């Protein structure tokens, strides 16, 4: 796995010490809140409803065992014994004290972690497929490119004050698990006619108050040219992106207002100037990064394991977990094990200190010390021998981490909402808990099949509601929480933005409304159809009918 070099280490260390000084000066009254606020935000420190919040970067969602263990320790020492994994593959702590945050950052730096690029109008932490390097369907591990993007973008002098924040996501697989089409830039790895591997570049996707699916600006860019091309896009955005209105400042608005053809023209013009310059990355350098993410020392195994099969036939709960949470690995005899952070009725994405430590231990014992964070707020042990799956599940299960619901209706994305977030207009977690309880029965979940429910507590859409098969947006209507339902969203390679079904529902009504949608789907689905497939076939009307009748 990628390790910091001396430069990275020094950078993070200096940054931590710098922040310690800034906090000291703030507490002594030498700088005002107005001066301090941008400084703390640059270090991932927000002020939320009840306390400060520290957002820690998990670059491209990859963690080593020692890092996750440290995250658990930080939850215990600096917080109240838990953390919250977010749709940005990051972790947030909800209760740190300002004067202790520099120590927390120092403890993070000890395991090569930090809170850089988790806030502010810079290029944020790059996200990618949580199964990178393990997925059977991937062309190549996308993480070497994510790491190159990280190095190119961290403290990039030209792009520290962009018109607005900027998010890049990468997939190395045709099956997009990183929602790349709803990012400012989405990169999809593929091969051109000449058999070279490169990327389709999409630009202007995003959620928030004006959601868009990204548009293809270039069908193919070779690996060597990727970084100069990204630089060209960022330059065009930096120059033409709107700074007059915060709500129109994202690149998606620029692409929407100017049109993709015009933006392409500008980018190509810019690119022509710089493509042969210092940002061209040669094969040797790329190979160096690929080497850093070289596969672990897999054993040569048969893909069938008798014990594994026996456990499945003897233990129905284990078999259920395998059915939903275990994904095919590219290496015979291995599997990808998903650790659900969505126990029935639990808080999506929350993990306790001891749960984090347990997953760290398990990863060390069974998965080459490798753990992933997913944008759907779960964890992954990416390289587990099939023969070890039963042992892994048994341990997870004891710690309430063995829920067999990946991709099902109870595997809900939920942002923190009004329970924590200062920007929220309504709560989202309690709603996710009630939906989870309503559909908690596993047979029922199997019957329903894949169904992605995503909930945001305000229009900022951190809970990705626009791309939920069923999306829920919490709003405030004259002091009362109410919930707007969208249907037909999709974050995958077939990305689409959900459509608003109609008038919102009160807190008391909304779970019944969701259930009526699911019941309708079951009534009218054709064999093999998921909820989203049925919706695409029949459209909004039948669903609207059950929600509103003649209303």
């Amino acid at each position, binding site marked *: 796995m990628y390790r910091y070099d001396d430069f990275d280490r020094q950078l993070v260390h200096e940054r931590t010490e710098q922040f310690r000084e800034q906090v000291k000066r*703030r*507490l*002594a*009254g030498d700088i*005002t*809140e107005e001066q301090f606020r941008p400084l703390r935000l640059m270090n991932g420190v927000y*002020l*939320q*409803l*009840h*306390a*400060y919040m520290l957002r820690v970067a998990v670059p491209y969602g990859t963690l080593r065992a020692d890092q996750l263990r440290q995250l658990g320790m930080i939850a215990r020492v600096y917080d*109240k014994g838990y953390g919250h994994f977010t749709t940005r593959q990051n972790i947030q702590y909800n*209760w740190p*004290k*300002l*004067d202790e945050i520099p120590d927390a950052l120092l403890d993070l730096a000890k395991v090569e972690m930090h809170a850089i690029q988790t806030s502010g109008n810079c290029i944020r932490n790059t996200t990618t497929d949580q199964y990178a390097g393990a997925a059977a369907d991937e062309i190549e591990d996308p993480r070497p490119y994510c790491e190159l993007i990280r190095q190119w973008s961290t403290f990039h002098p030209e792009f520290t004050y962009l018109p607005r924040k900027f998010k890049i996501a990468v997939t190395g697989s045709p099956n997009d698990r990183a929602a790349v089409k709803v990012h400012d830039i989405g990169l999809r790895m593929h091969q051109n006619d000449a058999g070279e591997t490169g990327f389709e570049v999409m630009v202007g996707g995003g959620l928030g108050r004006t959601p868009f699916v990204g548009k293809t600006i270039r069908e193919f860019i070779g690996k060597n040219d990727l970084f100069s091309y990204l630089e060209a896009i960022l330059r065009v955005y930096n120059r033409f992106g709107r700074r007059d209105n915060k709500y129109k400042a994202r690149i998606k608005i620029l692409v929407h207002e100017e049109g993709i053809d015009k933006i392409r023209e500008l980018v190509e013009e810019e690119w022509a100037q710089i493509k042969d310059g210092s940002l061209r990355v040669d094969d040797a350098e790329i190979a160096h990064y690929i080497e850093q993410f070289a596969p672990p020392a897999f054993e040569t195994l048969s893909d069938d394991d008798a014990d594994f099969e026996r456990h499945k036939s003897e233990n129905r709960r284990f078999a259920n977990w395998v059915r939903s949470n275990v994904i095919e690995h590219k290496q015979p005899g291995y599997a990808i094990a998903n650790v659900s952070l969505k126990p029935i009725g639990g*808080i999506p994405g929350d993990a306790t200190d001891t749960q984090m430590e347990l997953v760290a231990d398990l990863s060390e014992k069974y998965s080459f010390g490798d753990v992933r964070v997913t944008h759907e707020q779960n964890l992954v042990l990416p390289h587990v021998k099939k023969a070890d799956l039963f042992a892994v599940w048994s341990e997870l299960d004891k710690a309430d981490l063995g829920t067999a619901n990946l991709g099902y209706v109870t595997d809900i994305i939920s942002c923190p909402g*009004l*329970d*924590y977030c200062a920007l*929220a207009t309504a*709560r989202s*977690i*309690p709603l996710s*808990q009630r939906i989870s309880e309503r559909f908690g029965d596993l047979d029922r979940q199997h019957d329903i099949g894949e169904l992605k429910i995503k909930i945001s507590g305000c229009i900022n859409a951190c809970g990705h509601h626009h791309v939920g098969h069923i999306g829920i947006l919490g709003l405030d209507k004259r*002091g*009362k*929480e109410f919930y707007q339902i969208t249907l037909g969203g999709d974050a995958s390679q077939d990305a689409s933005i959900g459509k608003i079904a109609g008038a919102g529902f009160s807190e008391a009504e909304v779970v019944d409304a969701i259930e009526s949608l699911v019941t309708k789907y079951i009534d009218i689905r054709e064999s093999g159809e998921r909820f989203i497939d049925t919706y695409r076939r029949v459209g909004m009307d039948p669903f609207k009918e059950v929600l509103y009748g003649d209303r």
Partner: protein
Amino acid sequence: MSLQVVTANRLEDGLVVFLTSDGNWSENINDARIADGKEAADALLAEASAPELDIVIVGPYLIDVEQQGADIVPTKYREVLRTKGPSVREDLGYQAV
């Protein structure tokens, strides 16, 4: 008649606090000084926004409240949550004590 109090987050730990009668900041909304009417509210906020308080609290603002028996209760749910803690973790925040 509209009743208001001033709330903010404490600089040091970010916790929710309310401006009290004696010009201090309390974690308990029942200690808050109530302003009755716009004029009193403006004065209260002006007091809370004094530059020297910048090293005590962050972001003071007025919230609407009601007097319910001995208790002061915010009218907005967001502010009720701030006086208690997350509704999904009743073991945390002020409600836990």
